[in-house]
């Protein structure tokens, strides 16, 4: 119904302006018009009394209120404005201030520009100088000694040596050699100056080092020298001054030499602690032990000395050091005490066996010590001299023994065996040759020695036998000689290098044996009565006519001889010469027997052949000589 009313109203109002206006007012929605609401709210504050007067004055009231508000506004903004003005003035002042500062800075900058550039240039210069300083320091480091190094080189007043001495010395040397590089550059003056000063340092350092080393070397007189590391280094460093090194090592050698002599004398006379090992001289009654102990001591101490010396020069290059020479000097001191003692032993010793053993011992040690020290060293020449002496003493002793044999020749014993002097001498020879077996020398020496020994003994022995046999008859002499030579033979055949001698002796035996055999054969033939017949048959020539006609060769004579011969054949040993049975060697005896029997058989064969020869006119040859030569040989052999 309301909508219809409104439609109606709208239609009416549309036509009427008033209604339109009214409508407009009516249409106005107050709820939505905030401004209106605010205005009305504000109005409601002061418009408290709704009366005419107030309605009339409303406008002016509102205007008054508006005015008051504006005035309030004005005053409020007046304060703001004033504050803004003060801010403005402040900013203004700041600006001015800043402007001023800028200007001043500009001015200052302009002023300092010079300073800065100066600073920069100074800085650059300083860097350059620093670099130079580094270079200079490096140069000094390389080409100059530090004060403490100089101090080390100069050393302390007492002559002691600092452990860093060698480093400093090596540096001096390095600098000196580096100066050669400097000389090639354009720093020649510096180079020369440094070189000169280094040379001075070097010389004084070497001088000091030499004195120190020499002093140290002088002190190595203990039994076991204390070769310190420092001393080894010193010797190594002194290699650059060969003369100083030589003097130092000579000093070492001298010190060691006296130490070795003292040690040797101690070993000889004092021995070990509480007398064990006993002093060597305590055995001086036993020449071999005495001399052997001395030589062994010398051998051992030579080996030790060589080691000490090697430890001293271990850092040196081998060619600089004359090791052999120094070692020779060290071992030289003991030569005299050693020589005196051994000579005393040799001179007072008579026994050729002991002398020969000593000779061999000396030879052995000469050889052994040669492996340690040079054979030119005094010690070895001394040993060689003494060995030579012992060699001569030995042969002297042998020769005098042989001479004694010839001076007092013994007569052969009745059994034609060896004389006691022969057996004794052969025993001596055996002893001498046997000690060669137990000795320790080389084969060549042995051969040479044997030859000489045999010549020294066998020749006089043979001579002695001949002299002693000279008064005997031929058969006795032959048997005696065969026996004597046989003894020599059996003695020699046990040893090496005697072949030539044996051959000679065998030849002599043969000669004597021949005599003996022919004597034996003729003895048999004589005893059976065949000797004369055999002689006649041998001298018989066909032109003399038949044998049977020659006197003594008649049948009867022959027959009686053959009877005797038969009895010989039955007992062949009955006709052996006593001399033949005195032959000592069974082989020689058998050979003598065999050869004489052969001769007999030969003779018989000749006789037999002559008798059965028809030309010789024996009537019954076969009957006269019933045995054929074959049968005889068979029976006798």
């Amino acid at each position, binding site marked *: 119904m309301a909508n219809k009313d409104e439609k109606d109203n709208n239609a009416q109002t549309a036509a009427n302006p008033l209604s339109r206006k009214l409508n407009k007012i009516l249409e106005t929605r107050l709820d939505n018009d905030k401004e209106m609401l605010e205005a009305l709210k504000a109005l409601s504050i002061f418009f408290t009394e709704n009366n005419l007067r107030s309605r009339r004055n409303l406008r002016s009231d509102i205007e008054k209120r508006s005015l008051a508000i504006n005035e309030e506004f004005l005053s409020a903004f007046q304060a703001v404005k004033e504050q803004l003005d003060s801010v403005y003035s402040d900013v203004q002042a700041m600006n001015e201030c800043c402007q001023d500062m800028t200007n001043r800075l500009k001015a200052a900058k302009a002023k300092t520009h010079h300073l800065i550039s100066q600073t920069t240039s100074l800085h650059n210069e300083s860097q350059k100088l620093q670099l130079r300083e580094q270079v200079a320091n490096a140069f000094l480091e390389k080409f100059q000694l530090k004060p403490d190094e100089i101090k080390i080189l100069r050393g302390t007043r007492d002559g002691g040596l600092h452990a860093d001495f060698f480093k400093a010395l090596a540096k001096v040397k390095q600098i000196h050699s580096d100066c050669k590089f400097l000389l090639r550059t354009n720093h020649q003056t510096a180079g020369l100056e440094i070189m000169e000063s280094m040379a001075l340092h070097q010389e004084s350092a070497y001088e000091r080092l030499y004195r120190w080393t020499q002093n140290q070397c002088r002190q190595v007189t203990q039994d076991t020298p204390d070769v310190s590391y420092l001393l080894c280094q010193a010797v190594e460093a002194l290699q650059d001054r060969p003369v100083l090194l030589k003097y130092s090592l000579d000093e070492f050698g001298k010190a060691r030499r006296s130490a070795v002599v003292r040690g040797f004398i101690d070993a000889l006379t004092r021995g070990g602690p509480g007398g064990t090992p006993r002093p060597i001289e305590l055995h001086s009654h036993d020449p071999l032990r005495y001399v052997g102990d001395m030589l062994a001591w010398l051998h051992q101490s030579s080996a030790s000395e060589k080691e000490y010396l090697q*430890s001293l020069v271990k850092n040196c290059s081998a060619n600089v050091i004359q090791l052999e020479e120094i070692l020779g000097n060290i071992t030289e001191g003991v030569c005299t005490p050693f020589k005196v003692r051994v000579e005393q032993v040799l001179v007072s010793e008579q026994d050729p066996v002991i002398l020969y053993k000593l000779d061999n011992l000396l030879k052995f040690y000469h050889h052994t010590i040669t492996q340690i020290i040079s054979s030119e060293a005094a010690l070895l020449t001394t040993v060689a001299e003494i060995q030579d002496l012992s060699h001569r003493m030995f042969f002297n002793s042998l020769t005098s023994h042989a001479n004694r044999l010839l001076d007092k020749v013994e007569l052969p014993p009745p059994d034609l065996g060896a004389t006691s002097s022969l057996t004794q001498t052969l025993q001596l020879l055996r002893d001498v040759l046997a000690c060669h077996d137990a000795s320790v020398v080389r084969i060549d020496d042995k051969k040479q020695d044997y030859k000489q020994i045999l010549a020294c003994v066998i020749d006089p022995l043979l001579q002695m036998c001949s002299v002693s046999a000279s008064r005997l008859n031929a058969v006795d002499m032959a048997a005696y000689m065969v026996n004597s030579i046989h003894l020599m033979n059996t003695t020699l055949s046990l040893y090496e290098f005697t072949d030539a001698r044996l051959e000679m002796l065998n030849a002599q035996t043969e000669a004597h044996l021949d005599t003996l055999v022919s004597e034996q054969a003729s003895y048999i033939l004589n005893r059976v009565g065949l000797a004369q017949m055999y002689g006649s048959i041998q001298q018989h020539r066909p032109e003399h006519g038949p044998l049977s006609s020659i006197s003594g060769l008649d049948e009867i004579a022959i027959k009686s001889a053959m009877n005797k011969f038969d009895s010989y054949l039955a007992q062949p040993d009955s006709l052996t010469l006593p001399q033949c049975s005195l032959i000592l060697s069974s082989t020689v005896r058998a050979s003598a027997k065999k050869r004489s029997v052969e001769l007999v058989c030969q003779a018989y064969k000749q006789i037999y052949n002559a008798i059965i020869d028809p030309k010789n006119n024996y009537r019954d040859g076969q009957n006269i000589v019933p045995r054929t030569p074959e049968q005889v040989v068979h029976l006798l052999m």
Partner: protein
Amino acid sequence: MAAGPYNYSYIFKYIIIGDMGVGKSCLLHQFTEKKFMADCPHTIGVEFGTRIIEVASQKIKLQIWDTAGQERFRAVTRSYYRGAAGALMVYDITRRSTYNHLSSWLTDARNLTNPNTVIFLIGNKCDLDAQRDVTYEEAKQFAEENGLMFLECSAKTGENVEDAFLDTAKKIYQNIQDGSLDLNAAESGVQHKPATPRNPINTDQPPNKEGCAC
């Protein structure tokens, strides 16, 4: 500071004895070179070897004299017993005769050395156990009866070789510590040597040892 082989405090002298062919030189070679020498020639007279060892952190130099076993050298080798601190007496476990000769070697060793000399019995060639001719127990008993130290070793394989030489040195060192071995005696077979180099400042003084060394 002092490097190298020469820095030692003592020198001990040894001697090796025993029959020919028991391997004395091979033992020495094995000990000094740590190698086995196959075709070892007969020793002529005496030979010599050294090595530095360490006992109780002391360096000791062993100076070893190896003697020839051949009878003909007996007279020569006897002279080398003088002043030996240690004697190594060697036999061959595969050859009874070498064992049987020990008493004669022992007599020599006792007569010719110090009472303090340490005698060490070594049965060599223990690698050849199959050919053994002398039992361990027997030799051990012999050693005990005679107051010897004893080991079986092999110069070929090196077994126990070090021990034999080192144990001898230890025993000698022990004797020194006990005071039973007088170091100042020239022929004790032991020589003492200060290991540190003498203070350089004192070099002008005469060495202290000199007075008592003889």
